[in-house]
């Protein structure tokens, strides 16, 4: 049997490297469009300050992008190195969007980012703007394909299991692409990235305004960030991920856990604002409810029920029992491919194969599973409630906090007097880390909420790992932590160095804090 320690360490390594990667991705996704906006204004007006804005924010973008690339390769490697059985079992479906991501998106963004930095003197204005735009398109397309892959893990459509090849095989590519779960995720995730980009520019611009330096540069940057941020934060909230929660069982289970909905309530369900979660008794000790709201958000109706955890678990127990038959028949079929009886039995119970495999965590021969093991497997099918309940609420709360900030910031720039509101600027500066916290929490909710599966209902997490030694995992985990810590220190050092230096770091002679003297004001 696979050791639990190996599974836990593999999960920890994946979670750590994925969440680390996700420190850089949202900023890339958002900033790249702000570069397009700034450069478009430059091309249209010819005012060089907009070119300087594109180049300065582009410099910070580049520092961030470098680590995004570095940490992104890890993730592609890691499916193979640490999740070998997963890679075999679902590579037929999961590999395709990854390969298409490379062909369609990575080549585009990576080729044009080179020209973005090095092509200023070699390309016409319009050509350079085209380069920046293609880089933005590539970046966002890569998010699309990776989220199609990720959406399939949550809601595995367009595929079926083959006992001959012992894996899932694709049956309908377009079902995988237009998976509603993937589409909802894409919109939600890229919008969150846009908010991150906007917050980054807004915060740093606020700091320049507070310090009273490079005012014209900072004011314009502030304005772009406020407008872009407001639109994006509205998109995150209105087109929020909850629109995807009615789709598929994984999301229903996740929603029940996120909302600490232990029992099925008559429709429309009430929304639990906060609660004292009692995991062992499977209930809330106390709770603050708002009637109707959950039913409306979760089902977009007042008549559809949302399933409670108890009901979901009871249903899953039946599927586990049924799954034992499927696993047993599959084991026979792997020995004798042509056994007609086993084949018939397997096909009749195939839908619950994944649930049967859940028992492999506790027993090698699933026929020997005791009722107690079946109960444990049943309880495994719903992730722990408290981490999801609170992560989700903090994420949503931070989302509304950012909505408030961007609304005020936008309103201030309309009246063009944001400098008269130092409290707003200070607040904007303090909010700098907020989108990162919200993004990481969102990532956690999506992936922790999928447990105990890598592919919901199909492949349990504990079967997905590579058969490595625990020592190998300790070694590689230590290596990643060491490398990533050093890289993060270097990155943050450079970021703050150039952010402090400001547009003067371009060496154009137009800004404060640069070696070149006789600076002409940028906005003449």
């Amino acid at each position, binding site marked *: 049997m696979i050791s639990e320690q190996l599974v836990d360490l593999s999960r920890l390594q994946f979670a750590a490297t994925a969440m680390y990667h996700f420190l850089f991705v949202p900023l890339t996704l958002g900033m790249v469009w702000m570069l397009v906006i700034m450069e478009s204004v430059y091309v249209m007006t010819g005012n060089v300050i907009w070119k300087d804005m594109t180049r300065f924010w582009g410099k910070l973008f580049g*520092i961030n*992008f*470098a*680590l995004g*690339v*570095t940490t992104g*390769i890890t993730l*592609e*490697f890691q*499916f*193979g*190195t*640490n999740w*070998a*059985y*997963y*890679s*075999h079992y679902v*590579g*037929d479906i999961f*590999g*395709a969007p*990854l*390969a*298409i991501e*490379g*062909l369609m998106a990575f*080549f*585009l963004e*990576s*080729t*044009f980012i*080179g*020209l973005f930095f*090095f*092509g200023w003197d*070699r390309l016409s204005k319009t050509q350079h703007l085209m380069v920046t735009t293609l880089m933005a398109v590539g970046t966002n397309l890569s998010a699309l394909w990776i989220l199609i892959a990720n959406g399939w893990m949550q809601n595995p459509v367009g595929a079926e299991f*083959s006992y*001959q*090849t*012992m*894996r899932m*095989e*694709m*049956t309908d*590519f377009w079902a995988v692409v237009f998976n509603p779960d993937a589409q909802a995720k894409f919109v939600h995730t890229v919008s969150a990235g846009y908010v991150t980009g906007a917050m980054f520019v807004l915060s740093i611009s606020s700091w320049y305004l507070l310090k009273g330096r490079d005012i014209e540069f900072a004011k314009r940057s502030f304005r772009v960030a406020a407008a872009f941020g407001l639109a994006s934060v509205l998109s995150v909230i209105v087109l929020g991920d909850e629109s995807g929660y009615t789709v598929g069982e994984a999301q229903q289970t996740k929603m029940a856990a996120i909302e600490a909905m232990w029992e099925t309530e008559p429709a429309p369900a009430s929304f639990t604002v906060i609660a004292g979660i009692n995991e062992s008794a499977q209930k809330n000790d106390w709770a603050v409810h708002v009637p109707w709201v959950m039913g409306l958000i979760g089902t977009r109706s007042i008549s559809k029920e949302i399933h409670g955890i108890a009901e979901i678990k009871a249903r899953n127990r039946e599927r586990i029992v049924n799954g034992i038959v499927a696993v047993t028949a599959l*084991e026979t079929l*792997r*020995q004798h491919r042509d056994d007609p009886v086993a084949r018939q039995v397997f096909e009749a119970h195939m839908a619950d194969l994944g649930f049967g495999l859940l028992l492999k965590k506790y027993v090698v021969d699933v026929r020997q599973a005791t009722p107690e093991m079946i109960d444990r497997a049943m309880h495994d099918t719903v992730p722990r409630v408290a981490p999801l309940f609170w992560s989700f609420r903090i994420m949503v709360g931070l989302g509304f906090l950012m909505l408030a900030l961007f609304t005020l910031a936008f309103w201030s720039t309309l009246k063009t007097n944001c400098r008269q509101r130092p409290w707003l600027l200070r607040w904007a500066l303090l909010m700098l880390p907020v989108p990162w916290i919200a993004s990481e929490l969102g990532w956690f909710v999506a992936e922790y909420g999928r447990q105990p599966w890598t592919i919901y209902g199909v492949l349990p997490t504990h079967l997905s790992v590579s*058969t490595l030694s625990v020592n*190998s995992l300790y070694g*590689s985990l230590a*290596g990643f932590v060491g*490398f990533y810590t050093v*890289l993060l220190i*270097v*990155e943050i050092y*450079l970021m703050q*160095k150039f952010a402090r230096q400001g547009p003067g*770091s371009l060496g154009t002679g137009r800004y404060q804090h640069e070696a070149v003297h006789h600076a002409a004001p940028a906005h003449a």
Partner: protein
Amino acid sequence: MIDYPTLKIIWWLLVGVLLVGFAIMDGHDMGVGTLLPFVGQGDEERRVVINTVGPHWDGNQVWFITGGGAIFAAWPLVYATAFSGFYWAMLAVLWALFFRPVGFDYRSKIHDPRWRSTWDWGLFIGGAVPPLIFGVAFGNLLQGVPFGFNDFLVSTYTGSFWQLLNPFALLVGVVSSAMITMQGGTYLAHRTEGVIQQRAVRGAVGAAVVMVLAFIAAGLWLAYGDIQGFVITSALDPAAMPDPLAKTVERSADGWWVNYDKQPLIWLLPALGISGALAAAALTAARRTLSAFVASSLAVVGVIGTAGASMFPFIMPSSTMPNASLTVWDSVSSPLTLGLMLGATLIFMPLIVFYTSWAYRVMRGKVTVAQIRANEHTAY
């Protein structure tokens, strides 16, 4: 609709194309990284060297990432078995690659000689280590690697990292390293002038000679040494749904030479490897740098093609459970996925070649110390 056996062959060729594309494109900037500390003396010269690939390394690296993705999609069992089996070797490649994005982008952002020199050696590691390890990995594939499957196709690898470093594998590692250095040297000679170009030419010529000698030595070792190839001994249905446990495989002394007997035209591949490298050496020495780069790239086609064609249909033979060896026929994806990925490749590959060429065209010409001084704040 293309039939399944044909799709399997096409994907064997396409993975070959992606590997060759990787070795030519990412290979030349890795070669530049390998040569960097030796060809560039002093900060400004090193910046010249770095900026020859500065605008392009990131796009080139995608050949590697897409190659990985394509193997995942087309040969999931190979991706799973090789990446997990070669765990520490893959991590070494990965960690070496870490030095590249940050090395390129961060190096010249701080004016401290120690900082810059540290990243120069980081770029050296990022350029030198991956080709060496890939070569060593190929050297092990030719000998078979210790892995097997259970009934559910869970793979178990029983070797260790240190066992990969055997003499034959290291010799193949030398072939690979020298090939990539030659590729970088010819490129560098094309994009630089003066003393930097002189040193690049010396590096390219030296690497080409080493590569030819090591390549011939590896061939002789396979012909007369103790390394056995593999042959499929059971009947095989190329149209069957893939099942790596359905065949029988035996080791045989002439296993890797069977294809040459069946199809003598394959001899053209090693011939291309050797003659391409010799031509690259001669042309670089004569300062016909663009032709030299083309010759070097043809040598890459020849060398990688030789490895692939010798082993066909094997991709990853198993030394401990030969029947479980992964081949072109039984480690592939479903017909739907292979067909779909072929479509995607046919659409996007021409576009990629088009805009990559455009990017090189925009940035064409020699990189000089004067340019670096003029673009102090923007150059790498």
